[in-house]
């Protein structure tokens, strides 16, 4: 499955996420080890280089489920045409605030033992990401993400 950004993939959330990431400067996030397992930990490093423009920053882990659905579109003549689309749903997220100021900071998160494992399939997928959000008053929030892998 392609996890690229397309409007059809996640009808509401992803276009806004895409916009946040495009306008984000001075905020980077990554998993120190790119692979862990359910019940294990992941250490997340967030690097802030433009603290004044980011507002309050939070760092976290997010698991998104992508699943194919059959939907229909109504044609102008009143008939309906079925089509296949991929929807998404956040199935796990944990967030932690980060102290203000520039530099690299780390946070450790535990993957719940009963959470999904990383899986990229044809009609069902689970994607884990580390994420950082900068809450900017009166402006679009800043957002950075990076994928990591959770083994069963």
């Amino acid at each position: 499955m392609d996890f690229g950004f397309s409007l059809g993939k996640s009808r509401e959330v992803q276009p806004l996420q895409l916009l946040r990431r495009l306008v984000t400067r001075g905020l980077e996030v990554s998993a120190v080890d790119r692979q862990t397992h359910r019940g294990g930990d992941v250490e997340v490093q967030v690097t802030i280089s433009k603290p004044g423009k980011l507002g309050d920053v939070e760092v976290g882990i997010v698991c998104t489920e992508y699943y194919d659905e059959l939907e229909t579109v109504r044609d102008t003549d009143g008939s309906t045409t079925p089509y296949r689309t991929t929807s998404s749903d956040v199935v796990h997220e944990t967030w932690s605030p980060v102290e203000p100021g520039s530099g690299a900071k780390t946070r450790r998160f535990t993957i719940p033992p009963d959470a999904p494992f990383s899986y990229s399939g044809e009609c069902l997928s689970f994607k884990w990401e580390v994420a950082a959000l900068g809450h900017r008053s009166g402006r679009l929030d800043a957002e950075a993400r990076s994928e990591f892998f959770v083994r069963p």
Partner: protein
Amino acid sequence: MSPRFQLELERERYAPGETVKGTVFVVEGGGSRALEALLEYHEETEDYSEVAISIPSGRLYEGELVTGTSFEFELSLPPDALPNYKSAHGELYWELDVKSDEAGRDTHERRRIAVHPARISGS
């Protein structure tokens, strides 16, 4: 007439790399070109399903199936087999499918098996 089967497995729960052993009993004979067992990893959402992995036994028997006969099979799960998982919008699971290849619609006897995660070593 299509045959009917009864499927017996040595057990219902497995770990990656283990062998699934079982027997297919022909409870009602019928026309068949070939009999085969398949171990499959399925993805399923409310509207769609896909087979992500399919491990065939090869032909257990070829030709007409006679009532009262039985066929043993063994299929190995991959060492890195993923476990079953049920989510809010879908499911991943292993299933054994005994398939009789027939003219027209094939006959299937299916049974889900539980596959649990491999033990974590290190990390």
